[in-house]
């Protein structure tokens, strides 16, 4: 309940800010799911965003309007329009699901309102559907998975079976992995896209994977499905080594997976155990503000969205046009390491970490086993430059 307290306090602070003239210079619309399947993600992103403002003591400078997308594209678009046309925000931050991003894309592009994407990873948003007004500080689906293909091939794994839910993000993640993995000499011996949100028993697929003759499994699952999958994988005795997209063993729910997650190796753009001064400070501050919670990659998206926005404001951006123009020039070292925006696509350029989930002193934690630096997406049809 404490995070809600803080956000209420923030809202109150923003209100006071309004009363004292010309303090809240920038109006930010937080467009996130606060109900529905991704409510937990929306809350984490909000917490990260608020923390960044608080730590830099600049809560008064930013007036925040929160809107719930309910993870429904029509609702998301309606709320985006409300933020732009009625609240007249200077910048929109958020969007968890790619469906909502797809719905909002044409509108923010047409209305020339800067949008800082704080999660949704659809490759197209910074590919052929990119926009000068859409800047992504989170990740792209391809970005977090391409390094894994090369890395697994380098580890001498020759045959892989893939699994992911049957929806756009699942396909993009598997396709990006497959591309680099086969390019590096690996072979995909089989794979399946499981009905999204409907699959509660992964047993049949795990048996298929075993029967395919693969040496390892590579999967992408998130949320409840990730917990179910990893636990069921564990219950079958971990017959094949499990690799995956890092969302599979996200710190947000790795504890729910328990022992089953030990030994699972995945790749992601943020790992809470990164030993850098920036990250250590961030993890400590986040824990202090939110009941000792470990920040997830989602919290970092929110945090970095705020940091990027503040950096843009610091370099003179003050309205929609200048914020949009300044955002791609931002460079800074944050919790996840060096971070910059690629002016060719407006997607973030960042390190991708390959980490193993290990048991340390009775608690699950992440051990980084490889780092691929400054992963940059191909423009793939994006013509920003």
């Amino acid at each position, binding site marked *: 309940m404490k995070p809600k307290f803080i956000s209420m306090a923030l809202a109150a602070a923003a209100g006071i800010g309004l009363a004292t003239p010309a303090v809240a210079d920038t109006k930010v619309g937080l467009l996130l799911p606060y109900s*529905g399947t991704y409510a937990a993600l929306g*809350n984490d992103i909000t917490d990260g965003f608020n923390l960044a403002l608080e730590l830099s003591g600049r809560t008064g400078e930013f007036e925040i309007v929160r809107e719930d997308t309910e993870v429904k594209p029509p609702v998301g678009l309606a709320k985006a329009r409300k933020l732009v046309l009625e609240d007249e925000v200077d910048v929109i931050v958020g969007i968890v699901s790619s469906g909502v991003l797809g719905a909002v894309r044409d509108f923010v592009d047409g209305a020339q309102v800067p949008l800082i994407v704080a999660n949704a990873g659809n490759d197209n948003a910074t590919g052929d559907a990119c926009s000068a007004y859409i800047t992504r500080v989170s990740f792209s689906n391809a970005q977090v998975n391409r390094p894994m293909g090369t890395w697994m091939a380098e580890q001498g794994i020759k045959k892989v079976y893939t699994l992911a839910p049957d929806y756009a993000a699942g396909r993009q993640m598997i396709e990006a992995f497959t591309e680099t993995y086969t390019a590096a000499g690996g072979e995909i011996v089989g794979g399946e896209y499981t009905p999204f949100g409907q699959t509660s028993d992964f047993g049949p697929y795990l048996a298929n994977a075993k*029967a395919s003759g693969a040496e390892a499994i590579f999967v992408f699952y998130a949320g*409840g499905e990730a917990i*179910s999958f990893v636990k069921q994988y564990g219950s079958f005795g971990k017959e094949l080594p499990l690799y995956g997209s890092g969302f599979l063993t996200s710190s947000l729910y790795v504890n*729910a997976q328990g022992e089953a997650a030990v030994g699972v190796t995945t790749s992601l753009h943020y790992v809470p155990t990164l030993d850098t001064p920036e990250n250590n400070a961030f993890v400590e501050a986040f824990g202090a503000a939110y009941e000792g919670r470990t920040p997830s990659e989602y919290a970092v998206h929110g945090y970095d969205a705020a940091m990027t926005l503040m950096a843009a404001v610091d370099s003179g951006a003050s309205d929609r046009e200048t914020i949009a123009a300044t955002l791609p020039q931002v460079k800074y070292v944050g919790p996840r390491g060096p971070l910059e925006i690629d002016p060719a696509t407006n997607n973030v350029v960042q390190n991708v970490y390959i980490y193993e989930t290990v048991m340390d002193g009775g608690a699950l934690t992440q051990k980084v086993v490889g780092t691929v630096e400054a992963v940059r997406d191909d423009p793939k049809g994006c013509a920003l430059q």
Partner: protein
Amino acid sequence: MDASFWILQFLNAAQFSMLLFLLSIGLTVIFGLLHFINLAHGALYMLGAYIGISVAAATGSFWAALILAPLAVMLIGAVLYFTLIDRLRGAGPMNQVLVTFGLIFVFLDLVRMGWGDVALGLSAPPSLAVTSDILGVKYPSYRLFIIALGLAIMAGLWITLARTQIGAMIRASVENGPMASAMGINVGRLFFIVFCVGCVLAGLAGVAAAPVTSATTGMGISILIPTLIVVVIGGLGSLQGAIAGSIIVGFIETFGAVLLPGFAAVLTYILLAAILVLRPQGLLPARGH
């Protein structure tokens, strides 16, 4: 694709069928006797999982959760019975559907308030968190436990209905309620008992399923569809129907995933539609209505 592969898939199908059976049996037992369509069954299942997780966290024991959580769900069910269900008994199926649909929403947000939005998990007890050798394949012991639990409940209900006095009373009331009360059976009390049993079964299914899947706030709604499909395919209100429906859906989903992965998502819907068109009362409908 050797023999062990098919044995493995058969066990998967059996395990999934039993999970579906545990879920649907409470719903169908309540419908069979009370003619009451309890859409909140999914919500009770969700409460079973969440309460089970909390009990396991507090006591450190899965077995404590498996016993206490269904009892807690039964208490909640008893409160519901006296505040809502009893009043709605004569109110027609539409009103029952709507009120229990409303209850889903209420419980959804209550669970969000109590446990938060993050998906949670429950570990299988250490003794079952291993694999066993069965029919020449290694299979998770916990899944075998679910199969055994399902069979045990099935047998227990069967014996209760066929061999005990209360079972005879239930059968009499299912087939002819007014006659049963004329014969001196306290139908009201019988209804209450059966409703509580249904709630216990929902809670039990929630705890039993938690180590296999995860506890999410959406689970009460998402489980409703497969459960209703099982019950409608088998025939509303009949024990045999619930068994047949669970096995059919469990096997179709499992082998559909193996053999026709592209269609896995729609197979059960096609089956449901076909049954409703060809045999609207279900495969093994209950007698008496």
